């Protein structure tokens, strides 16, 4: 693992940061669209080490934050069923619905279990044949194959008591929505390295060209992040708009084609609501009708729920990089990680939570 550890090497990172400092001549707005990168940037304090000319904004790259309110409320309704074991990634446990969250359903006696992997949920279904096991399948393209594996495993074991509640979203339509907005300020993009590990980056050159926005496929270690920023700034200074790969040890142009085949076999694109942003056409995935038996929304017939979003929460504007968390009147006062008003304060990768935890100064 030694060679991979070098991507955390402080000396190399500092050296590359110096180069960025020397190179930059203009103010540039660069967006990353991955909650994991938001977290890593804050965790290492990278935002402090970049020259003031570089403004990093954080896009709608946290699937926890963008899961639509209606779906969270449906999850809460299903989780409250006495015969259901509701399984979820830890990230979703405290995301506020219209009136409560999964954590409070659990506290009230609901059988809510946090799992590390969707396949653990399938194990639970195997071990509890008398219960209905539902897995909250959220995520971008990175997580879609893992989520699908649960359906494949359940199907192979002929389990009749397993289903998934899907909120799968795709990055390219979100990029179009951000870059195509009349209020867009983003000039360069860091593409989410693990999304690209699955999907490759063959979808991106057309986006880069359409909006004249250079991109770098970027990883998550400090050296990866700085290299992605370096490459993007270099392109911005030179006026080019290509898609470069700053994460070649993990990402290839075509990506994981076997995973893409699976996604195509089981899922079809659909319109999706993005919490705080609204409907982005063809930005989501749903299970194809031949796999409807694994679709929890069909199995549980949850009626359309009247949703109620906090009026003060400006998560949508933050997710599009239009506002920063400290421009929100509730930031750090009414809205904190222990009492979140919106999803961006809950997930530790949500922009508001990251700013609260790392930026909170006296």
């Amino acid at each position: 693992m030694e060679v991979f550890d070098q991507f955390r090497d402080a000396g190399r990172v500092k050296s590359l940061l110096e180069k960025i400092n020397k190179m930059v001549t203009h103010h540039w707005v660069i967006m990353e669209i991955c909650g994991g990168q938001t977290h890593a940037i804050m965790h290492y304090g990278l935002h402090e080490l970049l020259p003031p000319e570089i403004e990093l904004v954080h896009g709608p790259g946290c699937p926890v934050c963008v899961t639509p309110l209606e779906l969270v409320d449906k999850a809460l309704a299903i989780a409250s069923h006495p015969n259901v074991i509701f399984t979820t990634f830890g990230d979703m446990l405290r995301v506020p619905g219209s009136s409560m969250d999964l954590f409070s359903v659990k506290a009230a006696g609901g059988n809510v279990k946090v799992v590390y992997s969707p396949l653990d949920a399938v194990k639970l279904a195997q071990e509890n044949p008398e219960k209905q096991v539902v897995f909250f399948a959220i995520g971008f393209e990175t997580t879609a194959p893992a989520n699908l594996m649960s359906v494949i495993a359940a199907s192979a074991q002929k389990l009749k008591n397993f289903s998934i509640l899907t909120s799968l979203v795709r990055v390219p339509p979100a990029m179009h929505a951000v870059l195509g907005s009349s209020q867009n300020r983003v000039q360069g993009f860091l593409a989410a390295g693990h999304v690209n590990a699955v999907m490759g980056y063959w979808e991106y050159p057309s986006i880069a060209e359409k909006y004249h926005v250079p991109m770098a496929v970027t990883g998550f270690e400090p050296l990866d992040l700085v290299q992605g920023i370096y490459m993007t700034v270099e392109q911005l200074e030179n006026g080019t708009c290509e898609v470069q790969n700053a994460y070649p040890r993990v990402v290839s142009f075509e990506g994981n084609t076997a995973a893409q085949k699976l996604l195509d076999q089981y899922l079809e694109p659909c319109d999706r609501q993005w919490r705080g942003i609204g409907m982005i056409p063809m930005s989501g995935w749903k299970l194809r009708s031949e796999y409807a038996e694994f679709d929890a929304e069909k199995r549980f017939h949850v009626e359309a729920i009247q949703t109620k979003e906090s009026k003060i929460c400006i998560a949508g504007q933050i997710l599009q990089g239009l506002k920063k968390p400290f421009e929100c009147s509730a930031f750090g006062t009414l809205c904190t990680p222990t009492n979140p008003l919106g999803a961006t304060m809950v997930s530790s990768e949500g922009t508001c939570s990251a700013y609260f935890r790392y930026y909170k100064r006296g």
Partner: protein
Amino acid sequence: MCLGVPGKILEIYESNSLRMAKIDFGGVTREACIQTLPDAKVGEYTIIHAGFALSILSEEEAKETLDALAELSLIENELGSEGF
């Protein structure tokens, strides 16, 4: 959405018709699904996300990246020393 970590494949086997592997993360081991990496071998590194292997981690590419960055330093240092 991207918490993926490198892990070394210790063992490959089938379980419930899925291609699985025992992965070593550095003193911690766990099972993960490598269904979409049919060419993955024992001893190779993969990126694991939510118990699922996304891709092989290439040592060769990693070395090339590090070498390229080192060369960049060297060029800039040389240019710097040539000036003034």
